[in-house]
């Protein structure tokens, strides 16, 4: 930053309103976000390490975190593959209904999670449209971890598609032609030229979908069955502890999840910086 006066926090400008705008921004940010989050940190700190550790290593807590992470990771991985295919199809191919399909990608962003939750449950329950189809094979989706996987895949899909899509659109077609003139088969071009270019975006989308899935609540609880140690997710455990008025436990679990979210946020920011660097040169 080029500050014309030494030590100045802000560059001089003829535009008015800096003090008002920044003052309001900081005050509002503090009141709504920072102080409440600080309360969580403070409350966790007041538990003391032994108490925190006891809650964190409680088998039910660990089981819930495992369910949340394991299934979120699987859902993000599934979305990475299918999201890439969807983004590819939407960007590269012309076919009837493409625009409509494109608009529908954001449905999981727009549809309230509770609605998604009961709709998915209705579909995948043993008497639902899809549940009925798989029942003869002895597969049960709703009220099992597979149900959680379905819900988390549903809410995560747009993240991958929407991060990969613009990068794919900006990809220089001449680069692919260059690979072809150099003798690369189509799949070699995809693997060696296109995929590396998409990788930062793909990983960013993966991390975003993962972060969203770990914290997800509304769409999961209806379909999950919520059996402790089997299909109980961490956010639900927080709610259960709260309804039992066990605030220390709720706080401790929330802190663990918050810490994990921050790490993911950091990773996402690094990935985006990497992705921007990759895009800026040419």
């Amino acid at each position, binding site marked *: 930053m080029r500050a014309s006066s030494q030590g100045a*926090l*802000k*560059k001089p*400008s*003829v*535009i*008015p*309103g*800096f003090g008002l*705008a*920044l003052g*309001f*921004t900081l005050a509002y*940010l503090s009141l709504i*976000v920072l102080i*409440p*989050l600080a*309360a*969580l940190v403070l409350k966790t700190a007041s538990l003391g390490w032994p108490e925190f550790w006891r809650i964190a290593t409680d088998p039910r807590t660990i089981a819930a975190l495992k369910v949340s992470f394991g299934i979120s990771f699987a859902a993000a991985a599934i979305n990475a593959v*299918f999201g890439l295919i*969807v983004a590819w*199809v939407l960007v*590269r191919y012309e076919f009837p209904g493409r625009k409509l*399909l494109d608009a*529908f990608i*954001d*449905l*999981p962003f*727009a*549809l*309230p*999670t*509770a609605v998604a939750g*009961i*709709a998915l449950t*209705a*579909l995948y329950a043993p008497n639902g449209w*899809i549940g009925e189809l798989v029942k003869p094979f002895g597969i049960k989706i709703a009220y099992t971890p597979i149900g959680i996987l379905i819900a988390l895949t*549903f809410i995560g899909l747009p993240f991958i598609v*929407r*991060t990969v899509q613009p990068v794919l659109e900006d990809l220089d077609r001449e680069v692919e*032609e260059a690979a*072809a003139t150099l003798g690369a088969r189509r799949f070699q*071009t995809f693997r060696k030229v296109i995929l590396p270019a998409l990788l930062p975006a793909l990983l960013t989308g993966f991390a*975003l979908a993962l*972060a969203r899935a770990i*914290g997800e*609540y*509304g769409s999961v609880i209806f379909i999950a069955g919520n059996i402790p140690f089997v299909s109980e997710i961490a*956010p639900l455990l*927080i*709610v259960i502890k*709260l309804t039992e*008025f066990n*605030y220390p436990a*709720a706080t401790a679990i*929330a802190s663990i999840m*918050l810490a994990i979210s921050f790490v*993911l*946020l950091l990773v996402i920011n690094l990935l985006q910086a990497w992705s921007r660097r990759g895009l800026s040169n040419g």
Partner: protein
Amino acid sequence: MADVALVPPVGAPRRREVISEGLFVRVVLIAIAVALLGIFLLLPLVSVFYEAFRTGFGPYWAALGEKDALAAIRLTLLVAAIAVPANLVFGVAAAWAIAKFDFKGKSFLITLIDLPFSVSPVTSGLIYVLLFGAQGFFGPWLQSQGIQIIFAVPGIVLATIFVTFPFVARELIPLMQEQGTTDEEAAISLGAGGWQTFFRVTLPNVKWALLYGVLLGNARAMGEFGAVAVVSGKIRGQTNTMPLHVEILYNEYMAVAAFAVASLLAMLALITLGLKTFLEWRFSGEIAAIRR
């Protein structure tokens, strides 16, 4: 690819797609995408309306006209009517400070603004319980003053503001940064005051992005479940928003009523998607960072 339609020329019996895939691969990929989106996105949406009208129009209307359902609809509208404008004002102020001025710690501030997106909805509700709940930091004092925030409307509003906090700001900041400060400097050099500059120069430049942010924020505000569930207490007719009412009805095995209320929220989602697509199509140049 313009050459797709061409008849293969004489002397070129093996013409190939240079940088596209063979027809078979294309058809398979399109089929996968369409099937996936159909089963995964469209089918749940269809099932909402199917379940809602399963027993005909009568029960559907009865479910929506029910007293508690109407109260939930009113509360949802009220909460959105407070949360959305509050975050609109904040988003504009934050974007003004961040985009029009250079100051230290700017990128850190942007990260902080995005923070609520990476917090689990449940945690978003919990933090207010910890602050204002009966056992919270300010709980005893609030109780002595007779003010109730948790398990009451103020708590629902706060939690909703938290989860929709970044929507307007994150649309405006990149756009206003891209637009720079020349327009404002020109206005000021022509004698316009600060507010005049804002309302007559800056605001018209960003109005569609602003609307876009409001649209998405509103959808989230009306549909929020996890954060609101934690702070609401779910008192029928009083602290029940539409998504919470859906849950209660569903858990009471009143599927038709639950899906009837859910169908309203699904329509909200469809309208949001429609308007969003329209804004992207019509004003794509005036909405920066459409895609995250």
